[in-house]
């Protein structure tokens, strides 16, 4: 029986269930305990699991990420919350030089079952230091798996997989989605990494979208349908590992692809997906793979400017139509 949960509730359930299942799992981060997190995602966990396992840290991102690495190396399974994705810049050495590399550098001796949860996404007038979507950086680095769920159900299932994984995993949660509701199936149902999900089937064009951009793509697809363009919307769900096959198959069918992601466009996630698709579906492409990332500017504060930087339905529709060329014909 599926229940309606918000994205935040789904994330919380994943953590609570895994903490009940395995005493090695614990959570640390700034204000995750008494306050229940600034986005109220962790409300109630302190009450159930106590302050040892739901640990309020000092404001010291590098330090507590480092502690988590050491704890993971020695038998624990930490979940670390980095409140705003922007603050992860302070912990890059710990994640990239330590956590992601210890297993490899030790020739397979070390195990680092560390899960990092953090946010991405603009749209809250939080300005340039509280709105970044830095997931592309992590997808670039070997030794870390990257999830970027778009629905409460995916958020729960992927986070459960991340916590059970013996490797470093990072899950990006769009802070604009925490109140989004969706059906979440009952029961213990981890979603494996590396499986894309077709969020809407279609025939004429493939929209590959991540995180909250999935919903924007779905709305655009509805509008396109009115113009008799049938768009398939696929959500890769994890960037690493990437379900290349699912993406490529869809594009082989439709002949057209647009990638939508909220990270900056240049040197970002849209580039890799476009490169993969043109590599593997070249002969089936009727137009270049198009992409739509966030504008290549810091995220501005003013509501008059901020939304200019984020992909929206209108831009998706325009980009899709452009794949047919100005005359509406196959290019």
């Amino acid at each position: 029986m599926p229940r309606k949960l918000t994205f935040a509730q789904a994330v919380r359930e994943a953590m609570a269930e895994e903490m009940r299942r395995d005493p090695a799992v614990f959570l640390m981060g700034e204000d995750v305990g008494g306050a229940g997190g600034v986005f109220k995602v962790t409300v109630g966990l302190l009450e159930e699991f106590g302050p040892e396992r739901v640990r309020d840290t000092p404001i010291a991102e590098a330090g507590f990420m480092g502690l988590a690495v050491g704890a993971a190396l020695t038998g624990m399974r930490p979940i670390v919350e980095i409140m705003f994705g922007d603050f992860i810049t302070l912990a890059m050495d710990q994640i990239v030089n330590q956590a992601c590399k210890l297993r490899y550098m030790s020739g397979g001796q070390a195990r680092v079952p560390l899960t990092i949860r953090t946010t991405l996404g603009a749209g809250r007038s939080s300005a340039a230091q509280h709105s970044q979507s830095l997931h592309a950086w992590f997808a670039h680095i070997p030794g870390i798996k990257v999830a970027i769920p778009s629905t409460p159900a995916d958020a729960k299932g992927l986070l459960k997989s991340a916590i059970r994984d013996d490797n470093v995993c990072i899950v990006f949660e769009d802070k604009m989605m925490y109140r989004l509701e969706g059906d979440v199936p009952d029961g213990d149902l981890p979603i494996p990494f590396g499986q894309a999900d077709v969020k809407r089937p279609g025939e004429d064009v493939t929209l590959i979208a991540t995180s909250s951009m999935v919903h924007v793509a779905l709305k655009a697809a509805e509008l396109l349908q009115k113009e008799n363009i049938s768009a398939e919307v696929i959500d890769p769900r994890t960037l690493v590992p990437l379900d290349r096959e699912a993406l490529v198959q869809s594009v082989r069918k439709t002949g057209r692809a647009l990638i939508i992601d909220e990270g900056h466009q240049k040197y970002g996630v849209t580039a890799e997906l476009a490169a993969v698709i043109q590599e593997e579906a070249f002969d089936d492409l009727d137009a270049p793979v198009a992409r739509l990332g966030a504008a290549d500017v810091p995220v501005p504060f003013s509501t008059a400017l901020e939304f200019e930087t984020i992909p929206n339905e209108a831009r998706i529709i325009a980009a899709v139509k452009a794949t047919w060329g100005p005359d509406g014909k196959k290019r």
Partner: protein
Amino acid sequence: MELGPEKLKDMYRRMVVIRKFEEHIYDIYTRGLMPGLAHLYIGEEAVAVGACAALRDDDFIASTHRGHGHLIAKGGRIDRMMAEVMGKVDGYCRGKGGSMHIADMSLGILGANGIVGGGLGIITGAALSARMRKTDQVALGFFGDGALNQGIFLETVNMAAIWKLPVIYLCENNQYGEYTAASKVTAGHDLCARAAAFDVPARQVDGLDILAVYEATQWAVDRARSGEGPSFLLCQTYRYRGHHVGDQNTYRTKEEIEQWMARDCIRRLASRLTAGGSASEADLRAVDEAVEAEVVAAVDFGLHSPMPDPREVVEHVFA
């Protein structure tokens, strides 16, 4: 430097500007006229005003997410600040920065900052720059008790100490970082020891006593200006309101809040002014009223300023 009555009245006035500015921020925020986050400085006014009173116009400050008070104390224009927090084009940053990023480079205000501890590198670098450019400018960095636990504190204080840079580290210990008590996450019975460990002279200051803040800062400024290097000031203070507008304040008792409010820094200076005969109650009331009108005008200025043209979104990425 002794503070004459005019200077004291100006300091009183500035504290009132901050208090009223922040009350209006609360108002426009709750009325939905200001997006984003609003971190109010109410209760801590004596720190910003006392410290900046010891600075010259060409000295530098770096500020924090709770920055309105620092900016006003250093001379920032409240109309342009109001426009900025509303995301309007007449704002200090043309609406690009918002509350957490207001700067006025012409006044040596090197910016509020959204990163806890984010101003520490900037202010120490400004001090290095002052030294290298052979000016006698001084640099003062405001930061919270929370930033004391960020590694950048160690790194910058160490460099300031080995290079004897003209910088003042002013920690505003308002007892909380977000919803967590500083005492819970901050080790050491004497936080001044964190600077003293680098042989950086440190003083603890009653942050509700504007004269104490002023005097301590003046001591640190004198040291810096005369080439004696960095100092550290730990100002004990308190924020009356939540971490930001909307915070339910459940992690503090009413009693605690009331105890601190009973020692209000503005009323304290007011009493001193009236007791000493520098000003009458009526004088101060007149100041309060004038300030209120000024802040209302600033709100108006902000409300009437247009939104930036959407095409500005691509401007100012590069010089």
